[in-house]
């Protein structure tokens, strides 16, 4: 009887315990994979792409690692997804969220093995995560009122974030830089206004924050290399041959002289356009599209600095920085807002020439120039800096901060343990398991640093028995210490997002009791 043929060929179905086992195993494998990158002494991973060139990336950013993996296990994909979302939403904690979700599932597996129904576990986890969040809320520090204190908080958060990355050697330097950059944004979370330029050469220490704006372009030949009190017109217009846009138009001539005439008219048109642009009274013209030799020459004649082919982001942020509007028509010079800056000059970084706009009006945007030994280093540095910038910009909006170094986990674990003791019924097992999963994070951090994790965590737990304790693990010195004194801070928003998404993801995986895999779509050539 054809009962077993409900599905198409190649489709498979896994049920009950087997399905659950498959998702547990997949999720744990993923969390074990990134586990070793957690914490300040976490290790990096080399990722080699299978594409052409076998490009190599060295990173310890959880989201980057997971993004590049080809995974077949459905549950593992859920974890990859939460890590990606964490990256988009808060920028940091991408590894922690996966590790926590993995630990939650590991604990859940033990509970399922001892015959506790997954729904009961979910109910327990939910209560625990609510309780943990409240515990954090009770202990947050908010220095919104005190600008100076807040700045120092931000600086500490940046250092905490950076210390787990390649930039840890110069973390003070980079933290300063990141905080300065974020403060310039004045509360907006638009990180595009912070431009990161990577130039190989020099050392990481030579990286710097530039108050102005740096455009990675060359100045046209024969044009001034230095302009003071520049008036800038930012444009997005065709400066090659200005095509007739009316549909169906084409040129049909019957003699050479006419060709010449029309060419002349075309040139005239371009000349007109350039004239109009010059009539704005500018001395710098930045265009998104190409500028051909002919108009370039005209600009050079008028003593105007013309920069071509600035990419779209470049144009947008230049508009932001200088306060000019992006123009495409030039008929009304009086109403177009021009951008201003004190000085435009060509500068050299390494052996590349760049154009530097300084003394800008708006000051919202800025550039960070990263220097480093190789492309890999620079890429990783950019990712790290990006993480730090994300966290900082989120913290500016949500000013609550926490201590770091496993302190929040211990605080949560303690409260959750209390809850477990008060709760009657099978749920309390799940709540207890939740607290064990939380403690796994400081344990992993200590393990990764090659410390005696059992000893340290036990010590930490004892310390946390006293109310209002600030103890955490200081990985650098390898001991338990007061986190407030050592200045290890983390943003509340990051911790909250880690907690909530990890619980949500593990709940989602736990609820599954059947996996149905459709037949993979066949490629044509294999048929």
């Amino acid at each position, binding site marked *: *009887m*054809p*009962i077993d*043929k*409900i*599905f*198409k060929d190649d*489709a498979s*179905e896994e049920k009950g315990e087997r399905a659950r086992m498959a998702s547990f195993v997949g999720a744990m494998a993923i969390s074990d994979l990134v586990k070793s990158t957690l914490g300040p002494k976490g290790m990096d991973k080399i990722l080699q792409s299978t594409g052409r060139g076998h490009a190599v990336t060295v990173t310890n950013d959880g989201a980057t690692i997971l993004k590049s993996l080809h995974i*077949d296990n459905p*549950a593992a*994909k*859920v974890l990859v*997804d*939460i890590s990606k*979302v964490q*990256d*988009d*939403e808060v920028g940091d904690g991408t590894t922690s969220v996966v590790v926590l979700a993995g630990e939650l599932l590991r604990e859940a597996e033990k509970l399922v093995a001892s015959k506790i129904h*997954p*729904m009961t576990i979910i109910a327990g986890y*939910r209560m625990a995560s609510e309780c943990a969040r409240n515990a954090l809320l009770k202990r947050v520090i908010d220095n919104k009122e005190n600008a100076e204190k807040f700045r120092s908080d931000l600086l500490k958060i940046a250092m905490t974030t950076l210390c787990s990355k390649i930039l840890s050697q110069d973390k003070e330097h980079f933290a300063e830089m990141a905080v300065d950059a974020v403060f310039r944004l004045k509360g907006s*979370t638009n*990180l595009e206004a912070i431009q990161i330029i990577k130039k190989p050469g020099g050392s990481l220490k030579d990286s710097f924050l530039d108050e102005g704006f740096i455009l990675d372009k060359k100045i046209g030949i024969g044009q001034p290399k230095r302009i003071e009190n520049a008036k800038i017109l930012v444009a*997005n*217009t065709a400066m090659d041959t200005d095509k*007739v*846009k*009316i*549909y*169906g*138009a*084409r*040129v*049909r001539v019957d003699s050479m002289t*006419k060709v010449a*005439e029309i060419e*002349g*008219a075309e040139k005239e048109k371009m000349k007109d356009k350039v004239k109009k642009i010059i009539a704005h009274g500018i001395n710098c013209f930045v265009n998104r599209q190409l500028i051909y030799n002919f108009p370039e020459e005209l600009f050079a004649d008028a003593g105007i600095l013309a920069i071509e082919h600035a990419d779209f982001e470049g144009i947008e942020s230049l*508009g932001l920085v200088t306060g000019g509007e*992006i*123009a*495409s*028509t030039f008929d009304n010079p009086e*109403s177009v807002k021009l951008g201003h800056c004190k000085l435009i000059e060509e500068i050299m970084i390494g052996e590349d020439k760049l154009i530097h706009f300084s003394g800008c009006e708006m000051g919202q945007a800025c550039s960070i120039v990263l220097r480093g030994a190789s492309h890999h280093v620079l890429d990783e540095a950019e990712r790290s800096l990006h993480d730090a910038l994300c966290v900082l*910009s*989120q913290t500016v909006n949500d000013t609550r901060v926490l201590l770091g170094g496993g302190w929040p986990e211990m605080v949560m674990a303690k409260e959750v343990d209390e809850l477990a003791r008060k709760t009657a019924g099978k749920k309390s097992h799940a709540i207890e398991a939740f607290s064990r999963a939380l403690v796994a994070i400081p344990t992993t951090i200590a393990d990764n640093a090659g410390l005696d994790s059992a000893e340290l965590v036990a010590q930490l737990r004892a310390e946390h028995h006293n109310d209002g304790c600030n103890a955490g693990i200081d990985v650098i010195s390898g001991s338990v210490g007061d986190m407030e004194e050592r200045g290890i801070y983390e943003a509340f928003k990051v911790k909250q997002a880690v907690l*909530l*998404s990890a619980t949500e*993801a593990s709940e*989602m995986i736990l*609820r*599954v009791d*059947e*996996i*149905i*895999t*459709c037949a*993979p*779509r066949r490629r044509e050539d294999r048929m």
Partner: protein
Amino acid sequence: MALAFDEFGRPFIILREQDQKTRLRGIDAQKANIAAGKAVARILRSSLGPKGMDKMLQGPDGDITITNDGATILEQMDVDNQIAKLMVELSRSQDYEIGDGTTGVVVMAGALLEQAERQLDRGIHPIRIAEGYEMASRVAVEHLERIAQKFEFDINNFEPLVQTCMTTLSSKIVNRCKRSLAEIAVKAVLAVADLERRDVNLDLIKVEGKVGGKLEDTELIYGILIDKDMSHPQMPKHIEDAHIAILTCPFEPPKPKTKHKVDIDTVEKFETLRKQEQQYFDEMVQKCKDVGATLVICQWGFDDEANHLLMHRNLPAVRWVGGVELELIAIATGGRIVPRFQELTPEKLGKAGVVREKSFGTTKERMLYIEHCANSKAVTVFIRGGNKMMIEETKRSIHDALCVARNLIRNKSIVYGGGAAEIACSLAVDAAADKYPGVEQYAIRAFAEALDSVPMALAENSGLQPIETLSAVKSQQIKENIPFYGIDCNDVGTNDMREQNVFETLIGKQQQILLATQVVKMILKIDDVISNSEY
């Protein structure tokens, strides 16, 4: 097998290419079909009820769906068996018609099939079983009508509606914040409902999702949300009291459909053409400005020049807005969709109180809110959540809740959930069975037994002793003659569904029974399956 002989003993070929076909006939065909139907129902059985589990489905491209919505599971399952496909259709039609109870209907059909198999073994003819089922379903539906209760609500008192939606949501992963989601669903439905005609056009409710944030941030927006931003980065991000021109023509020079060529052969012509072009752009923008528009929403793209002119004239614009969104905007703002610039008039502009752009997270995700519209009949439910699968599942759950609220506005009758209605029906059908003389009596009894399987599955999924719980509830219903006792899935401590506030809509339940019966009848009537044997 399919051979016949004529009077000379030569065989006829009735079925072409016989050896390539497999054929099942008679009782074997019925048995095979029933087995397939049961197999599908068995997959869904564990998803029923508030403690039901989810299924993880991996699509052909490796994409993952996690859901416990019956219709979605079956749709994504990619089944090959014909009978299994019928079950998929069944759940889909429940989804189209009612929107909720898609799992229940399949479980019900599965139980009916299981009972039918037993009757077949007794030697009862399939048609007699089908007829018996038909009679029984009539009895059940009538009984539902009897035990149904009208319940009153109005715009100011929508608490009963919220309670019903909560019943629907409690079986989904979102049950953590079912209260707020149920409120959102009810408010959304009430906002677009036409209470005079008792009709709700669900097209007016848009459900948008964005990954990030938490489920609690889900909100109801009295207006429209579009996943677009202003065409020029320096256009204003916040417009108050907007007059919106809704255009379906691009800000580009005209492209006549007829084939034509514009030949340029002299310098003068070149010059005039150039002027014309500039003038054209200018006119377009001027036209919008003249009628008093403060925001342009366009279905097509803009030329760079037009874009700058718009920016220059201080006329913010949004480009590449999809057709559906455009229609919604037109409905919400009371504007008209204008296909040509010449036809723009001040009356055709839509009006909105506030149009603002909002950015999310660390990446440059921006969305445009159009709020306080002239005609508040279009609303948007904006879902936030930890990951993509969560959002998708929430969307489906919200859809179910919206459907339930709509059904209640159409028809105010409710029955009690938690299996209470099924148990009551089962009792009624069982009692009615004795009145029917003939073989159908057995089929009707079988139907009553099949009805018990839904509360049984509920109890099983909630970790209760299924037989013990069911018999206890059943005797309680008979003893007190109150049809409100159901399975206590959430361990609240009472069986009275009135106290637990677990309702379902009457039409939903009726539809479930009718649809399930219909499909089972159809399956029972099949006595020959011919298929290509290559598969």
